């Protein structure tokens, strides 16, 4: 979505744009799956919202690990995004009077989330897709679908083009440009199981990193509290149940292990558990925010319930999200109008009716706050190379608040890059990019060699198995709770797994037509490198902050305990060559407007 909005807006300004996506249409980018909504400081509800308040909530929600300037700008342009989308015809939810409706999301006490039932992402993406189609029609954007970027071409330290592979024919192509924008999403699939689309990958960003772009805060991963629990090893992905459900759904676990056990054995059903046998643990611990605490807090608390033996469902890895009260208060019809498609989705997957029994939910990997390091202009440290949306690290600190990903993606694409790109282009002047520069042929050659190397892998273990093994390691040691000991162990395990991959992986097919085996292999190979950097980053950061929870660093109440004296910085990693340790660059975070405190949602 960041890509479509950026391509369209830049084309409107007169630039000639080439846009690439690996799907068969730009409308299928994973932004489409965003359910709940998009934040904006419109204050339409007159409940005291403001640009400053959205800025403050975002900084606090990110546990004081984001850059103030970027976040303030994000809050400022949030209002323009809503205007823009409505002008495009995005069908946001409305009140009976015809004005736009809002709801609340985690980490805020105002209603500032605009939504389109449970498919806000699809509606916003279709708006951007429409703007993009208009520019394709005008000939200002040339769209390449089923095309994957496999490297960036650097000439004299500046990005001057990319190398792509046509996923239908296997052809390797060179594209020149005065600047390269990466809008390639996050890297949650390093965990194998996540709410990301199967194709979501880190390859473009990782290739850029290996050409010199810094990778910032890779260990900051968002584990979303309300996902449908895992059922078995066959599982290929996890499905999110929107945070918006926590407006009306109440999260609980049985008070005692005994009751939990009876539920697990299916001796009783959830509705038979008496009120005084239930622990609405978020409402109990966080009376001010209740069920709408930020995601990292809700996830850790759910894990705590499970660790105490109070988890439910067949595996015991779940807690309840209960709508019985809301249905009693509002009626089933009203609840269906708000969340109908989510309830249907839950039913399709679990074969259980959430109108009758509470949903079973458990945290799952959802979003990655880390990404390519960018400055205020969204430029990486490599001139001419930009990163937008989830692909960069800039706005969410150590934890992203709900309904802020769509906001950031569209802010970057519609309202930031059109202003900042021109500055760089002015410095390089209007001369054409010289495609005969040997850097192009050399990079293309390297890409082709890597593909041949992958195709030559004729071992005994499938790429999928390596990916699943990596996911297990990451989830176990670099997931919701991290320790020095576990991370150190993970580092060794990943390194050995990677070595095993390059010896014993099995890749079938050729490079002459569609080859899903080869596509997957290239992406998993990059995840196997990224995983180790995430572990390095998590080891380096000996504090807890937001989604990064080091067991060694917690408050007496079990909340994330930051160490601002030593870790109030962005950790930007610099690649130094294969099998060389990466070098840490620190960007100090200076807070001029927000006072750093222990984050509290009580």
């Amino acid at each position, binding site marked *: 979505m960041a890509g479509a909005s950026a391509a369209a807006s830049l084309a409107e300004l007169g630039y000639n744009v080439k846009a690439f996506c690996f799907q068969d*249409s730009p*409308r299928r980018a994973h932004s489409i799956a965003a359910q709940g909504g998009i934040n904006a400081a419109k204050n339409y509800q007159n409940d005291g919202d403001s640009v400053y308040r959205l800025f403050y909530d975002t900084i606090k929600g990110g546990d004081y690990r984001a850059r103030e300037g970027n976040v303030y700008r994000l809050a400022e342009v949030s209002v323009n995004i809503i205007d823009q989308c*409505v002008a495009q015809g995005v069908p946001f*939810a*409305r009140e009976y009077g015809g004005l736009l409706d809002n709801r609340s999301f985690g980490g805020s006490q105002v209603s500032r989330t605009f939504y389109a039932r449970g498919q806000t992402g699809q509606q916003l993406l279709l708006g951007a897709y429409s703007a993009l189609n*208009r520019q394709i029609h005008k000939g200002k954007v040339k769209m390449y679908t089923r095309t994957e970027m496999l490297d960036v071409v650097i000439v004299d330290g500046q990005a001057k083009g990319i190398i792509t592979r046509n996923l239908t024919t296997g052809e390797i192509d060179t594209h020149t440009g005065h600047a390269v924008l990466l809008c390639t999403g996050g890297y949650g699939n390093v965990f194998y199981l996540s709410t990301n*689309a199967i194709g979501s990958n880190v390859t473009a960003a990782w290739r850029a990193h290996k050409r010199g772009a810094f990778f910032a805060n890779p260990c900051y991963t968002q584990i979303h509290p309300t996902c449908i629990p895992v059922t078995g090893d066959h599982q290929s992905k996890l499905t999110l149940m929107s945070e918006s459900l926590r407006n009306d759904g109440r999260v609980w676990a049985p008070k005692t292990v005994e009751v939990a056990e009876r539920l697990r054995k299916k001796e009783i059903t959830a509705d038979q558990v008496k009120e005084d046998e239930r622990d609405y643990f978020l409402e109990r611990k966080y009376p001010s925010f209740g069920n709408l605490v930020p995601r990292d807090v809700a996830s850790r608390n759910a894990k705590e319930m499970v660790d105490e033996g109070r988890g439910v469902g067949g595996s015991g890895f779940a807690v309840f999200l209960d709508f019985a009260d809301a249905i009693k208060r509002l009626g089933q019809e009203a609840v269906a109008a708000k969340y109908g498609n989510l309830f249907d989705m839950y039913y399709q*997957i679990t074969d259980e009716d959430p109108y009758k029994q509470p949903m079973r939910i458990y945290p799952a990997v959802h979003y990655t706050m880390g990404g390519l390091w960018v400055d205020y202009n969204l430029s990486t440290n490599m001139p001419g190379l930009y990163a937008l949306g989830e692909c960069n690290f800039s706005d969410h600190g150590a934890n992203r608040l709900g309904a802020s990903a769509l906001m950031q993606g569209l802010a970057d694409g519609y309202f930031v890059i059109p202003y900042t790109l021109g500055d760089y282009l002015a410095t390089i002047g209007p001369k054409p990019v010289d495609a005969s520069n040997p850097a192009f042929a050399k990079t293309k050659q390297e890409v082709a060699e890597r593909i041949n190397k992958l195709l030559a892998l004729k071992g005994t273990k499938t790429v*999928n198995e390596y990916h699943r093994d990596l996911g297990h390691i990451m989830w176990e040691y670099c997931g919701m709770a991290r320790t020095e000991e576990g991370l150190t162990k993970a580092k060794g395990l990943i390194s050995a797994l990677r070595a095993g991959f390059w010896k014993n992986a099995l890749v079938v097919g050729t490079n002459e037509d569609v080859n899903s085996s080869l596509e997957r292999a290239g992406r998993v190979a990059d995840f196997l490198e990224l995983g180790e950097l995430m572990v390095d980053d998590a080891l380096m950061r000996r504090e807890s902050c937001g989604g990064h929870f080091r067991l060694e660093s917690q408050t007496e109440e079990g909340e994330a305990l930051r160490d601002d004296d030593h870790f109030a910085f962005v950790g930007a990693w610099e690649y130094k060559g294969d099998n060389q340790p990466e070098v840490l660059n620190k960007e100090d975070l200076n807070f001029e407007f927000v006072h750093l405190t222990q984050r509290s949602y009580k």
Partner: protein
Amino acid sequence: MSGNMNLTLKVWRQKDTKSSGKMVTYKAESISPDMSFLEMLDVVNESLTLKGDEPIHFDHDCREGICGMCSLYINGRPHGAKSAITTCQLHMRSFHDGETITIEPWRAGPFPVIKDLIVDRSSFDRIQQAGGFVSVNTGGVPDANIIPIPKVIADEAFNSATCIGCGACVAACKKRFGYAVCIG
């Protein structure tokens, strides 16, 4: 796990657009009813890969019913026999042990087969790029609440905007397809 199923699959295999294709029979063994249809194909593909064979190629991405990437004609119906869900949301509990399942690509003139079960749906994009877009520049638009739109009209507009562009309508009705009629 108890209740696992053994199935026979008849699958369309076609190397590329120019080659001719054929139905090939595979066994899908020990399939859990909790698997999605695509996860069942993943299992088959893992075993094909281990034998050094090329996996069955099919389009898929979000696996939660919204991206519109997955397709498949299953036993003569787009996205299978259940209504209003995509193939990725179809679960194996809808099938029974010993069943034979026929899996074909979307079959329609505007959707040529790229490989196996993958078809080219770029004609959908071309329709929109030919003029089916909203002409609004970025920036310079009025406040979002300046034109109230009655809730009933907004809801109706939303209903028309839920199409995920999967192409099931084209596959189901080769002559008179349209976004307005969702058969999948």
